């Protein structure tokens, strides 16, 4: 099946069509805007907790209907099969507008969408494998909680303008929590997403957890320092996620104009930022967004120059921009809302992390954020607690912890000098990705305060 490329030719189930007709003329109230969305899916979740293992197999099936006119509207959702009879709530609130169909670029269903869900034994083996590898990597450390979930779903959407589409999703997530040896209560966690649970590599994940636990256990705070910093993908993804208000929505351009005074150059040459709902191999790859608008690649920042924000079809009304296809539905229960799908900094082929590390005479290789970042748009400031390694002449010389990366938001974007090829994504309200980057002139503080 090719995920449906012409949004008016896709075949939807008869009950979807019948419901759309029924809500279009509900109790004589002419709703010239109506939409029916259905989704069914299945998932397997295997969890490991102290002394207990759980395996859950769920089959979900739900629908959502939006209907209204210029004066009033409603949203209703429910489980099972959608029926024309409803019952539907009284419309109220603001009016509703829905998108019209447009031709969508061709999209071929990736072959791994067809692979079966991870089995219970496979899930247990994956988690056990991670636990074993972690204990071998760092003696005395242990996995205290772990959960792997693998799911597949199919959605259908039809609206009164003739928009019809049908598309599938495949998504797996992994949550790990581990403690370091000793009684200090040092804990590290990972939350990752892939399209297929079989892509999680137990050994690599165990090493990452062991590295993080070692750094958190042995790392020391540094006094205020400035130097070249290599920012690893997990930290960069958190920073990009924190900067989302600059990239998404109608207010984004205003924020950028305010911070950079209308200058289009906001970052170094190496900074090309994109969002792509149909990123090949991406965990959220799909031909259409949650309102049936075709997804596409949208360049937000091109070689350091601000191009445009990420906007849904209704946000582009009265604007110079084309819609990005970025309306997301967290589930059938939820209203579609704007947000990134695969938002990422474009990697540079041929540049390895080792190449960038070798360029650092004195600085830091910052690996992860140890807490939430803070971004103050009014004051043009940001700060994020970090951990990593101290680097001297291209070599790691010791772990660093209890530090805060702090500075101006504009300064941070300008500080990025080079980008590596190791693009990695994190699930942070959409998949947010970045390769390792080299930044110059960033300031690191001890966690308790400056200096």
């Amino acid at each position, binding site marked *: 099946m090719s995920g449906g490329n012409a949004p008016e030719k896709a075949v939807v189930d008869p009950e979807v069509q019948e419901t759309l007709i029924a809500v279009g003329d509900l109790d004589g109230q002419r709703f010239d805007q109506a939409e029916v969305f259905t989704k069914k899916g299945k998932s397997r979740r295997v969890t490991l907790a102290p002394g207990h293992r759980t395996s859950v197999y*769920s089959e979900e099936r739900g629908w959502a209907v939006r209907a209204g006119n210029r004066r009033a509207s409603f949203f209703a959702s429910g489980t099972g099969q959608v029926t024309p009879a409803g*019952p539907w*709530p009284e419309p109220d609130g603001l009016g509703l507008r829905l998108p019209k169909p447009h031709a969508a670029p061709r999209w071929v269903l990736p072959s791994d969408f067809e692979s079966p869900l991870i089995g219970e034994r496979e899930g247990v083996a994956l988690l056990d494998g991670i636990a074993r590898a972690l204990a071998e990597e760092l003696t005395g450390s242990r996995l205290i909680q772990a959960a792997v979930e693998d799911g597949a779903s199919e959605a259908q959407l039809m609206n009164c303008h003739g928009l019809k589409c049908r598309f599938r999703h495949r998504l797996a997530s992994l949550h790990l929590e581990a*403690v370091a040896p000793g009684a200090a*209560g040092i804990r590290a966690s990972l939350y990752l997403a892939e399209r297929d649970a079989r892509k999680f590599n137990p050994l690599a994940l165990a090493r990452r957890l062991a590295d993080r636990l070692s750094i958190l256990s042995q790392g020391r705070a540094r006094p205020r320092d400035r130097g070249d910093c290599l920012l690893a993908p997990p930290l960069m993804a958190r920073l990009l996620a924190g900067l989302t208000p600059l990239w998404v929505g109608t207010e984004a351009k205003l924020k950028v104009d305010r911070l950079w005074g209308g200058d289009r150059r906001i970052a170094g040459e190496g900074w090309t930022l994109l969002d792509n709902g149909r990123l090949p191999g991406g965990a959220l790859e799909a031909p259409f967004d949650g309102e049936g608008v075709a997804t596409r690649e949208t360049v937000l920042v091109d070689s350091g120059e601000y191009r445009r924000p990420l906007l849904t079809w209704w946000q582009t009304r009265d604007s110079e921009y084309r819609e990005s296809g970025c309306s997301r539905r967290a589930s059938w229960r939820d209203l579609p809302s704007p947000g990134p799908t695969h938002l990422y900094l474009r990697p540079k082929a041929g540049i390895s992390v080792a190449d960038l590390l070798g360029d650092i005479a004195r600085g830091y290789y910052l690996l992860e954020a140890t807490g939430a970042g803070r971004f103050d748009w009014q004051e043009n400031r940001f700060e994020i607690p970090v951990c990593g390694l101290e680097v001297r002449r291209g070599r790691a010389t010791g772990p660093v912890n209890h530090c805060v990366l702090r500075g101006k938001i504009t300064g941070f974007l300008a500080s990025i000098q080079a980008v590596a090829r190791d693009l990695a994504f994190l699930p942070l309200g959409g998949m947010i990705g970045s390769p390792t980057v080299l930044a110059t002139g960033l300031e690191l503080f001890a966690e308790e305060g400056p200096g």
Partner: protein
Amino acid sequence: MPFSALDHAAIARALSQIADRSHDLVDAFFERSEEVSLPAEGGPPGFTVRREEGLAIRLVRGDRSWLASRDGISPSLFAEALRQAARAMPIAAYPEPRLDPTPWIDRPEAPELVPFPTDVIRHLRQERVAFPLRLHVARHRRWLQIIGPRWVPEEQFESFYSCTAETPWCRLGMLLPSLGPSAVEAVAAPLLESFRCRHAPAPEASTGVVLLGPEATAVLLHEAVAHALEADTLALGGSPNAAIGVRLAQDGFHVLDDPSSAPEGVRRTCDDEGVTVCRRWLLRDGVVEQPLADSAAAQVTEALLPGAARRSHRHLPPAPRSTHLEVVAGEYGLDDLAADSDGLWIPRADRGRLDPVSGQFSLDIPHARRLRSGQIAEPVGPCRLEGRVGDLLGAIQGVGRQAQTAGAGWCAKGGQKLPVWATATPLRLEGVTVKP
């Protein structure tokens, strides 16, 4: 009640077929839930309605659990889920019991939601205050029926409201048992106080006396007592049994979890595994007496009592959680607790966080007021109360005599979003650290 027409006996018989070992636990969970919400003024669409119905079958065998869940209630879905939980293809298909929940055909309405935002704004205006405010209000209803092979507890029903208020300087969320004048007051009063404190500077880091209002007490005890004494949290550090008998606070400080005395509308007679709830003394005279446990934990650790299992929906297995925390009232009035002290009066806390491994705890405070010679004085801005659970509970030096329903909110531990309720008193803490 939607599940009164289920064939309980046939369901119990079907469940008994997969519980074929002596210590197997098996249950069927039938759920119907509804959320009707009215978005803040200016937000589309109008009424938003979410209605769900489904079932889950669970089998616990030793240190393993299997759960199979479905969105819908029908004999074939039940039989499918039963087969999946059993992980076996039986020689003969499992019988399909009669499952006829009452059809859900009534129009979703919640007219009581409509005047509430206006009433809150009117209340604020009576205080001669007006500011940009977006109020989102929702009604939540849930019907549950749990059936085991040997027991059929009565059907459970919960109904409550949630309200989220957004102003340019704060976001306030709370749960309300009903939407009467007292609910208007419960939403308006903290909004008014946050308006008055909006420009207040954060206090300097200090260690000293802190007076917690009932709302802040509820959040503190939810994190520092309830979460800390959940069997699954305790298991992260070793045996849950080891916590029993440990002194965490001083004599005279008692904390219970009692779902049967929760506010009307959310009172429960059984937990989400169908086990009868009890008045559970978490701390009696400051000593841990009975941690929160579900059936699986109680099976492993004999000293634990089941009856505190909760599940946010059918697709997740139950886990031990509190429902309604209760602080037994002490002997002091608010003036006695303040007792000529200098420090901070903290009426409300946004949220608390507990690191289950290190025992480190923090409470985010949106605003507070200084306590000067026992008198509540000028406001201070956002700050954080930090410490280890044992140290914080050990710092409680006085318990107020005015217990009130307070501090209800959503708890989201482990991805399970659950409403939690509390009846709490003011507390006096000494020697605790507050940081900006």
